């Protein structure tokens, strides 16, 4: 089996719109959460959200390219532009070498809802414009980016709720391991407009700590009251190891383990058993023991039930080793379809710069999470092997293990 490494990263998020800004935020424990008044007006329980700036692409992309891109597609474009540049890949390379794309996305609500509103008003589908269909489909990110970057390899979107981005990297790893592709653009994108999260807000899953936005997302804390939705996009360039070496590419790390599982149970409640199975499979895939892991980037979103189940699973596998754990979602909020990819970017930055980003707002762990070694303040520490968890609605679980080389 071939080895798979990451040779480029890019990110556009509420804690920074490039890798350096994000590294600084992670180290400083800076939170990107704020208030969106439009949500209150629309009927949300909570106006809290990650505040993600919209990129200005006029002058960068043609009209045709821009009008087919929805919000999450714009984020994915700028993150991918950064990642390709970081990997030393230009359009000349892409036109002459087969490159694939596997990207996580699980909604494009705004485009769908706005099309509906036009039809209700005008009673004529010909007035929707030519971009509506390309913005509305779940595969909007991969169809747009493959066109813009002239990609000719594997081309599809992975929709797996809040583990979409992570599964994308796991599946990209499988394609490269099997020798089917030398390079794949992987990542995850998440829209942040107020139309996209109303039904999730309706589940009473979001924090309502509106008087303290910066303290609203508090994974593992006893007084957490829900997650804060967020978004943006993160892109990683996955590459076959020998191919990367021949190019003289800079290698952030190797993907040595991918584990997946499905709970086969409740549609929204997580499972400690399913979570543990994904982690165990990732360890087995990497040929490692739990004691080999230097750091766990937890999925923990700041929901009462979700964090507890993950804490149980982590404690069962890693409790004896007091493995350092943190969830970066206290800073970023829950980046949903993007989270599994962005948290690999966060973890790679921690590995590269030898620190553990803090699990901010952890003031008092609950009865289960007090068993874990949760890093509440930034810790300078050399990291060689790290695990990242992602879990989603429907019980879809993914765990990835990264190794510094």
């Amino acid at each position, binding site marked *: 089996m071939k080895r798979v490494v990451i040779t480029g990263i890019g990110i556009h998020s509420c804690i920074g719109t490039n890798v350096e800004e994000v590294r600084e935020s992670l180290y400083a424990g800076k939170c990107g959460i704020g208030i969106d008044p439009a949500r209150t007006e629309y009927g949300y329980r909570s106006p809290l959200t990650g505040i993600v700036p919209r990129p200005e692409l006029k002058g960068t992309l*043609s*009209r*045709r390219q821009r*009008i087919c891109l929805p919000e999450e597609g714009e984020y994915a474009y700028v993150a991918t532009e950064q990642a390709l540049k970081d990997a030393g890949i230009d359009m000349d390379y892409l036109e002459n070498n087969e490159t694939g794309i596997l990207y996580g996305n699980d909604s494009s609500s705004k485009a769908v809802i706005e099309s509906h509103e036009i039809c209700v008003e*005008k009673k*004529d589908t*010909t*007035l*929707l*414009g*030519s*971009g509506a269909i390309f913005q509305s489909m779940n595969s909007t990110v991969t169809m747009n980016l493959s066109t813009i970057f002239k990609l000719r390899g594997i081309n599809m979107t992975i929709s797996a709720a809040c583990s979409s981005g992570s599964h994308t990297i796991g599946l990209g790893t499988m394609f490269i391991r099997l020798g089917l592709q030398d390079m794949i653009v992987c990542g995850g994108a998440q829209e942040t407009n107020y139309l996209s999260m109303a039904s999730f807000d309706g589940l009473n899953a979001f924090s309502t700590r509106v008087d303290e936005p910066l303290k609203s997302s508090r994974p593992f804390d006893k007084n957490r009251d829900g997650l804060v939705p967020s978004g943006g996009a993160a892109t990683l360039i996955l590459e076959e190891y020998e191919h990367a070496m021949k190019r003289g590419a800079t290698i952030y790390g190797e993907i040595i383990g991918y584990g997946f599982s499905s709970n086969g149970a409740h549609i929204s409640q997580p499972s400690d058993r399913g979570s543990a199975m994904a982690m165990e499979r990732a360890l087995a895939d990497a040929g490692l023991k739990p004691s080999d892991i230097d750091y766990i980037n937890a999925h923990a979103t700041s929901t009462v039930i979700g964090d507890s189940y993950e804490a149980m699973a982590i404690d069962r596998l890693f409790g004896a080793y007091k493995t350092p754990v943190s969830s970066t979602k206290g800073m970023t909020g829950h980046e949903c379809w993007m989270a599994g990819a962005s948290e690999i970017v966060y973890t790679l930055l921690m590995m590269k710069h030898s620190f553990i980003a803090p699990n901010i707002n952890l003031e008092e762990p609950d009865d289960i999470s007090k068993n874990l070694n949760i890093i509440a303040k930034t810790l300078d520490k050399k990291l060689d092997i790290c695990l990242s968890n992602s879990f989603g609605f429907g019980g879809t679980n993914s765990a990835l293990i990264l190794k510094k080389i």
Partner: protein
Amino acid sequence: MNRNEIKEIVNNFLIEDIEVEADALKDEAFLKEDLGIDSLDFVDIVVVVEQNFGFKIKPEEMTNVKTLSQFYDYIEGRIKAT
């Protein structure tokens, strides 16, 4: 609305919304070959015509519209007919 006013509105939305180069907007210019307007762009032209002139383009009436001048003629004809 006279011919010059129609030309001004059409040219303006071709430049602003369809992003056609202003220098290319000559009466004899072919919509497809010279201005680069493809079938997807035409879908957007239907939308901007409705926004600017208040009527919808009927595709069957556009089959003989090949040049910009013919497009002005078509718009002018539709306005006069209402």
